């Protein structure tokens, strides 16, 4: 299989890339890792007339902590960079848990977090993680930069608020106000398959009190679902068996799963409940996630 014909440019600066997109009209696409776009082009689900490849733009392959504690992930930071990042291990438990569960190791060597957010697949793992963490996307266009919270970034399946001449140049996780904990659990039939269900939980505690909570669901609706009521049920008090059970129930109630070859709607909703309480109960480690994906 091969894609339909397109024009290709690989500019060496963001300004040049934005200029090309601006002149390129509606059917230009930005190429970063290409691990969703290229398969879609091969299957002719997408036939862009113009590809603007970011891979020659220097200075986008970073992830770093700013002095204020926020984490910035550049547009060419690959999933594998995050998987093997020492920076994430101590400070970003939800991201560290999710990174090894994205697609497969070969795809992770090429695909990018920012690209995954822009692809806006309801089964994308990073959108849930970033939503749970209260993240933002920084978009750059001819008029400059703007910050778009994840809650406003995705408008539907495979749709975002990005203008045709805007490039998502980085994703930002805000600084923690307390001590961060959390995780990501995903059930998939085999490595590289789309998630049957994924749950991202990000908690910040001060002493024993939860001061911020975020819960988001992968693969159980037309887009990534933020379980805001479940998160609200956790904040302002310590984590207890009761509050965990309540949050898990509320998270399951906002899931909108459909019965398909990966499982029944009832089963998927049940998994949301189980994963939420398992992460909150602290039983979710990377090893736990491994066992889960093998199940």
């Amino acid at each position: 299989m091969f894609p339909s014909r397109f024009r290709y440019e690989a500019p060496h600066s963001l300004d040049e890339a934005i200029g090309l997109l601006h002149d390129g009209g509606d059917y230009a696409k930005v190429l970063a890792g290409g691990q969703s776009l290229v398969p879609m082009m091969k299957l002719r689900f997408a036939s862009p007339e113009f590809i603007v490849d970011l891979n020659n733009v220097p200075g986008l392959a970073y992830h770093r902590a700013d002095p204020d504690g926020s984490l910035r992930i550049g547009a060419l930071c690959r999933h594998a960079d995050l998987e093997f990042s020492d920076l994430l291990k101590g400070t970003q438990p939800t991201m560290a848990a999710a990174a090894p569960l994205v697609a497969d190791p070969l795809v992770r060597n090429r695909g990018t977090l920012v690209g995954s957010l822009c692809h806006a697949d309801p089964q994308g793992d990073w959108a849930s993680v970033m939503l749970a963490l209260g993240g933002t996307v920084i978009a750059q266009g001819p008029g400059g930069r703007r910050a778009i919270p994840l809650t406003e970034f995705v408008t539907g399946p495979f749709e975002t608020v990005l203008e045709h001449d805007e490039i998502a140049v980085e994703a930002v996780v805000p600084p923690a106000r307390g001590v961060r904990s959390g995780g990501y659990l995903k059930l998939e039939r085999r490595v590289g398959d789309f998630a049957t269900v994924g749950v991202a939980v990000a908690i910040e505690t001060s002493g024993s009190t939860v001061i911020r909570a975020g819960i988001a669901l992968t693969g159980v609706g037309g887009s990534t679902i933020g379980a805001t009521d479940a998160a609200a049920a956790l904040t302002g008090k310590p984590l207890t068996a009761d509050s965990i059970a309540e949050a898990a129930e509320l998270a399951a109630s906002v899931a909108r799963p459909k019965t398909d070859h990966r499982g029944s709607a009832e089963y998927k909703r049940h998994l949301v409940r189980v994963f939420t309480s398992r992460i909150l109960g602290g039983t979710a480690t990377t090893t736990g996630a491994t066992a889960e994906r093998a199940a």
Partner: protein
Amino acid sequence: MTMVYDDLGDEAEEFPVRRIKFTINGRKKVAEIEPRLLLADLIRRGAGLTGTHRGCDTTNCGACTVLVDGRAIKSCTMLAVQVDGREITTVEGLASASELHPIQEGFKQEHGLQCGFCTPGMMMAAKGLLDRNPNPTEEDVRWALSGNLCRCTGYQNIVKSVLWAAEKMAPPKLSEREPEASAGGESERESKLAETSAGNTEA
């Protein structure tokens, strides 16, 4: 190498062919290609290196795995035009003129293949792992090969093959030797231990 395309006539200006330069298995190459050509095709049909296999063609099976600038990737899911200025290693780049690469030797020793279709991809994914982590656990190997499918072996011998290669490539480490290491390794360790204690006695 020659790639032959349809003559688009007036439309040709709209989809210009691009000239790229790249290195494959240490050799410098130039090619004129359509931007929609996939890396797997540049390697197989352009460079004539058919060791890189095309299996599923949908980013699932990993038979087309090669290294681009040292990272193992699926060559059916990258545009050939993107390797302009970059370095590719395929399975043909593993062996030297007279000697198999330890990964290849491992697959031979541990019976890591049956039909052999997935083998080049398995080896290149293994190369990517061992370059990054020369001392992997079995779990590390299984994790690193989880993007490669094999329909014959049940994976057990593939994992053993990669561990065999890791052992062969690693500088001998006294403390980290497995007790089940080959008899030679074991006696070597014992003699080294004896040497050490003898040295201690002398001191």
